[in-house]
């Protein structure tokens, strides 16, 4: 099975994150940039399928030069190769334009299965799998907590508000996964060394047949008008329980009219 995993480089969600003041995009320059956490689960799932059924795993990333670090990190887990969509004109692209670019790249990669994280930790927009599937005319099985591959049939168990659903589709398809699906492996030393030699192909917009004015700020379908930092919350009263902690807690709740 030819599997492509979408990997996004994001600012570390464990540190302070900001939008840039000049153009309102995510500030990557000052951030510690890492693989979107959920994508590691997507990579793991792809590797497990390859191990069970054979095939090839390709990483697909759209991002600036520095995304190379995340691509190498992803490859160190075990995928075979990577494709990096890299073009200065992409800066400022909205989700709709991003899906156009990724769909164009996927069109060239002939994937049977596209796996991605259910959302990225920076935008948390959660729309990419369905946008890509819509463009490619293939099924999207989203939010998987379990994925079974039986020949060309994919079966996914997905969490819903009321319980869970079992959903099935034939390949080609896009599957997005939550962090409940598996436990991603740590790259081995051998894997890290091997990753340095794995092929990373760079694709420009011209090579994908996407015009520069369809992406970036020119092609954006939405815009950030302004952004402000929310003042940090400040802690209120803190008491140490000396036998009456529960009562005092309820007294506080009562003054706030919750009890």
């Amino acid at each position, binding site marked *: 099975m030819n599997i492509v995993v979408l990997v996004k480089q994001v600012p570390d969600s464990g540190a302070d*994150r900001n939008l840039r003041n000049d153009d309102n995009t995510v500030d990557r320059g000052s951030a510690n940039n890492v693989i979107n956490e959920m994508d590691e689960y997507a990579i793991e799932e792809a590797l497990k399928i390859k191990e069970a059924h054979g095939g090839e795993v390709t990483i697909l990333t759209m991002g600036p030069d520095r995304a190379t670090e995340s691509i190498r990190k992803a490859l160190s887990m075990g995928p075979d190769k990577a494709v990096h969509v890299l073009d200065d004109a992409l800066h400022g692209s909205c989700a*709709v334009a991003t899906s156009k670019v990724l769909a164009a790249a996927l069109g060239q990669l002939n994937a049977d299965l596209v796996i991605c994280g259910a959302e990225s930790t920076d935008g948390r*927009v959660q729309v990419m799998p369905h946008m890509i599937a819509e463009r490619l005319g293939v099924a999207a099985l989203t939010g998987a907590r379990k994925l079974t591959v039986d020949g060309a049939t994919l079966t996914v168990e997905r969490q819903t508000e009321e319980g869970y659903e079992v959903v099935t589709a034939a390949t080609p*398809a896009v599957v997005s996964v939550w962090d409940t699906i598996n436990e991603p492996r740590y790259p081995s030393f051998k894997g890290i060394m091997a990753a340095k030699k794995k092929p990373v192909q760079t694709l420009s917009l011209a090579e994908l047949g996407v015009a520069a004015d369809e992406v970036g700020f020119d092609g954006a*379908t939405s815009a950030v008008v302004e952004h402000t930092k929310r003042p940090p*919350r400040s*802690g209120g009263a*803190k008491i140490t329980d000396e036998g009456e902690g529960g009562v005092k807690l309820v007294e506080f709740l009562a003054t706030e009219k*919750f009890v």
Partner: protein
Amino acid sequence: MSEVLVVVEATKEFGVKKVTLEMLTLARELGTPSAVVLGGAGAAEALSGKLGEYGAEKIYAAEGDEIDGYLVAPKATVLAELVKRVQPAAVLLASAQEGKEIAARLAVKLDNGILTDVVGLDADGTATQVAFAGSTIVKSKVTKGLPLVTVRPNSVTPAPAAATPAIEQLSVSVTDTDKLATVVERVAEQKGSRPELTEAGVVVSGGRGVGNADNFKLVEELADLLGGAVGASRAAVDSGFYPHQFQVGQTGKTVSPQLYVALGISGAIQHRAGMQTSKTIVAVNKDGEAPIFELADFGVVGDLFKIVPQAAEEIRKRK
């Protein structure tokens, strides 16, 4: 005034979800609300009373297995046709999994901008979003097409405004491509009578400090006494104390209730990401240095196994 389409979120168990009432309330600021029901046969009829109560002037319905038997693609197709026909002033969906997915496909079909996790929307289409774990407030606009917006639960106070909506059944013309992802089975899991996590006015969450799955009864008891939902930190979920659908945080649900009670939760950034826009935060933790106290309006340092039962007893006394 032009129509504003509100795509209804509802469940079999609870009927119209609160976020739908919030969207109808918001839609009245922008135009005339029309509800769109995309679901199983008879769904619109069952929901029409509540939708009318909150100002839906009209209900568009597309129902049946053709709509409900697959993942969101057929719903997006029907909605796209409706949008082209009525040219609404805006389209509002819930910022939950399905709402975002329908909106995603609609955006591509119409080559239209999309804004998700919106907590406020002005008449000129300017949306307010909260980004980066609640640390940044963003004002944004759709610049191509109509405002296509997913609204985060607990953003608006629902206000009734009686209307008597007529139901218009939409002819369903979904394509084979829309029917690629088949729902084989829907399994309901026992949740009892607690409110849905993202919509609840009160959320009581437990973390690693709760110790084990059995002890979560304490968390549930306090939640029930406060009429709230139960949440859990990632540490608690990863340790198997509580199911994943109740996880609050960066890789779980984002909640914004009136009251958030954190029990045995240290307040790692992973967790704060999902709850720090809550109005009032109360924390109980044995470690006085735990970062959760930096957020808490009221914190108790001590043993939650002593404090929580005492608090429960005190609430019962006051009732």
